[in-house]
């Protein structure tokens, strides 16, 4: 019977001539669909969308109530589900609505019709099925929306909401900045209507996020003689609704992070920062707490002063600790269903760890305070083991990375709670995201340092083999490069001052072919730098050097030939490795000394390089010509012939005391030949 009635409704729209009956039918349909998802579904199945679109297109009266009612019904259908929205999009409703808004007679269109169209567009463009790119296909659509904002508060609210939701990328920001959107939004910040100034704040945030040009433009604008940042800051007053305070604080945070406002600006330090911490109170609802902590983490991420201020403001560390303890938002009024409780708990944990990771990034005192939070490491271990929550795992790894910059933490907290086990599990799990694995490896790199109590257990776990397996001989894409660099970094830290057995193990696991291949990755200077650092640490004993040197020398020569003159760090690393090789057996030394091209390159660097490069070159010379060695005299004469002695004598006039004393020692070896 319901379907029969629904069919009647749909059929009643066929008679387009009888506007009075049409009006009654539309009224009945409207009242039957509003609030009733089943009815919406029935009518869509029976083909109401094309009928309504026909009414929109064919109605003779340009400004009639019929068109408005049709749009209202379409809006109500859209509110049923994302499937309904997809149906509307596929039917071409969006274009029809934009055509209606951008008609030449726009000025005369009734405000109610325009508002209805915008409400419909808002429902569509703020859904998960939103065809966002569609909005940016035609710049006229954007300009039309911006122009229409002048009409009424409803228009302002709808357009701001659409744009705030649909501005995701730099390209979107650029397209919007070409319209007069920013100038149109500014006066709306002081709108007395909450439902206007909230989406306006969201819009300003979307426009200024990681966009210096937009942020600067927003910051420099004024309204009624007041800078915009001041007007935004008033929306952080305590009597404002919490979402308003949050988005106002977010706006100031984004303006700062986009370098439009300095970190010591009053509005950042004394308003945005305390507001965000205040919104972390346990009495706030979960969504507010999560967003506030995330924004706080972003605000203070790069500035040590802000981190210090945040750490001593309003018990921030204890407030964030409460995120980890509560199973869900402790605001009892929320009354969340069970699945939502679990999601809320995860979101809170992820946000807390993210905020901690920013707080602990630089300051030892802050790290200590965080580590002393009751039960923190228990929560950390739980989060690391929670393989169903990748977001939480990523946040906790970032937090550990910050905390692991503390020597004290490595020796105590990380020793009492062997988090290295979970980190290794994450690193070796191929199904995990590359981001997560790289952050875990970065944390491991600190745990592998020589003073770390976790180092030996990691070695026993076979960390060398596990890390070596992650090193790709020829990294194909960014993911491979990321994993390889981090693995090499870990091995580099492990090999520093390590036992001979560990160094030998590293070189054996990696293999000479793989090392040579990595040193040839000219497009990836950072990778080459790390591999050279690893070699420098590993090739410190003759046994290793003799095994590897012959093959490596060719690659090192090629690196010196091809490296950009500006990249002194690479040159320095290469020469240091050569210096280590020069300390090897006779075959190493012979191989080096007979390589005319390499030795010419080195004497040039000795003459023209930076102090560090010159020091490394002198070490090469010293290792080749130590006068107690048998073939030393022969090598010395070859070096003299290449001009080394002459250049060293020139360097006696250098101002660096360290270089001077080394040059003097080297010249003494020459003179004892």
């Amino acid at each position: 019977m319901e379907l029969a009635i629904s069919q009647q409704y749909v059929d009643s729209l066929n008679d387009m001539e009888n506007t009075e009956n049409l009006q009654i039918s539309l009224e009945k349909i409207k009242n039957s669909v509003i609030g009733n998802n089943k009815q919406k579904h029935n009518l869509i199945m029976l083909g109401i969308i094309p009928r309504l679109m026909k009414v929109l297109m064919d109605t003779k009266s340009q400004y009639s109530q019929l068109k408005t009612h049709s749009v209202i019904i379409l809006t109500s259908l859209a509110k049923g589900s994302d499937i309904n929205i997809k149906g509307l999009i596929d039917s071409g409703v969006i274009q029809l609505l934009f055509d209606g808004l951008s008609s030449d007679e726009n000025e005369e269109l009734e405000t109610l019709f325009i508002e209805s169209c915008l409400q419909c567009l808002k429902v569509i463009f703020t859904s998960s099925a939103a065809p966002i790119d569609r909005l940016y296909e035609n710049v006229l659509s954007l300009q039309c929306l911006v122009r229409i904002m002048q009409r009424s508060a409803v228009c302002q609210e709808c357009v701001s909401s659409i744009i705030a939701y649909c501005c995701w990328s730099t390209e979107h920001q650029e397209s919007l900045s070409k319209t007069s959107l920013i100038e149109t939004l500014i006066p709306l910040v002081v709108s007395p209507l909450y439902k206007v100034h909230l989406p306006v704040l969201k819009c300003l945030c979307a426009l200024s996020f990681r966009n210096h040009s937009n942020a600067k433009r927003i910051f420099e604008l004024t309204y009624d003689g007041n800078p915009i940042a001041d007007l935004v800051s008033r929306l952080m007053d305590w009597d404002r609704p919490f979402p308003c305070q949050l988005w106002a604080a977010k706006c100031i945070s984004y303006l700062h992070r986009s370098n439009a406002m300095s970190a010591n600006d009053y509005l950042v330090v004394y308003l945005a920062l305390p507001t965000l911490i205040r919104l972390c109170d346990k009495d706030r609802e979960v969504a507010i707490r999560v967003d506030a902590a995330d924004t706080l983490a972003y605000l203070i991420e790069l500035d040590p002063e802000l981190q210090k201020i945040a750490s001593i403001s309003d018990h921030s560390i204890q407030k964030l600790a409460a995120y980890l303890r509560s199973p869900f938002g402790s605001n009892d009024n929320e009354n969340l269903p069970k699945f939502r409780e679990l999601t809320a708990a995860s979101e809170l944990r992820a946000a807390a760890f993210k905020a901690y990771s920013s707080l602990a990034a630089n300051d030892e005192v802050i790290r200590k305070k965080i580590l002393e939070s009751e039960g923190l490491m228990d929560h950390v271990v739980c989060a690391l083991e929670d393989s169903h929550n990748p977001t939480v795992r990523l946040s906790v790894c970032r937090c550990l990375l910050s905390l692991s910059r503390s020597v004290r933490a490595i020796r105590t907290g990380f020793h009492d709670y062997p988090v290295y086990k979970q980190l290794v599990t994450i690193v070796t799990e191929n199904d995990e995201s590359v981001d997560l694995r790289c952050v875990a490896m970065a944390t491991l790199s600190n745990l592998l340092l020589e003073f770390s109590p976790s180092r030996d257990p990691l070695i026993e776990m076979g960390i060398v083999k596990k890390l070596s397996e992650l090193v790709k001989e020829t990294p194909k894409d960014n993911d491979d490069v990321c994993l390889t660099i981090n693995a090499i970094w870990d091995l580099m830290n492990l090999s520093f001052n390590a036992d001979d057995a560990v160094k030998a193990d590293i070189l054996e696991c990696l293999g000479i072919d793989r090392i040579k291949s990595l040193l040839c990755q000219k497009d990836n200077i950072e990778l080459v730098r790390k591999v050279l650092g690893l070699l420098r640490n590993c090739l410190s004993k003759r046994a290793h050097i003799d095994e590897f040197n012959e093959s490596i020398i060719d690659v090192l020569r090629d690196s010196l030939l091809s490296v950009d003159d500006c990249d002194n760090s690479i040159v320095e690393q290469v020469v240091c490795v050569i210096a280590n090789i020069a300390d090897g057996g006779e075959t190493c030394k012979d191989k080096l000394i007979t390589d005319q091209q390499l030795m010419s390159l080195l004497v040039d660097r000795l003459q023209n390089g930076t102090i560090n490069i010159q020091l490394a070159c002198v070490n090469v010379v010293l290792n080749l010509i130590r006068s107690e060695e048998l073939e030393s005299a022969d090598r010395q004469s070859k070096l003299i012939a290449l001009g080394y002695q002459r250049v060293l004598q020139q360097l006696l006039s250098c101002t660096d005391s360290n270089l001077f004393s080394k040059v003097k020692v080297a010249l003494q070896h020459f003179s004892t030949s």
Partner: protein
Amino acid sequence: MPETVGTSGINEEENSRAEWLRRITECEISRADTNRLIMDYLVTEGYKEAAERFSIEANVKPLRQLETMDQRVAIKEAIEGGRIQDAIALVNKLDPMLLDDDRQLYYKLLQLQLIELIRAGEVEEALNFAQSHLAEAADHSPEFLIELERSLALLAFDDLEACPYSDLLSMSQRQLVASKINASILDMEGRPSQSKLALLLKVSDWSQCSLTDGKVKFPHMTNFATAELENP
């Protein structure tokens, strides 16, 4: 905070209460402010005629235009008169998004409609209505399922007043829903959804709780309707 008088033979508790009353009496609240509070209450709650008369008698202009009250008054009257379908149509005319956005409110209206059908003895229609309009909502909301069950329980009783859930039939149920709709409409218009008087009552209650939490002794107002003070 009431001051403790010295040991002059006077009962400290009585003195404290007297002191409290004396301080209340000494607070000067202008007639103009009182009138504005009353006018705000009348306009917010939708008492248009009373507001118009009060405006003339007390010579106080309403802060908002009275003509926008007409729709709210019509909706309120339709709900209180049991004409729920009319009320829904009026709400949809005023704001077509309201009931789509606030499904709880919509279902409250449908529940009232169901109750009216039951009150009128139209059992079959009531069951059909429950099945076609309310069952779907109950599937997704345990809270509404409970309400639906309470409403349908009325059908089991010949004498509806004998049902344990007979409170659903009372005028206060309709007034509650009417008040929520009124608040939603005001919210939609960007106006405060509560009168300042209602807010003042809440602030008074909060203040008393805060003082109690701070272990301050003072005469509590336990009955706001009569403004009676109890001893500290």
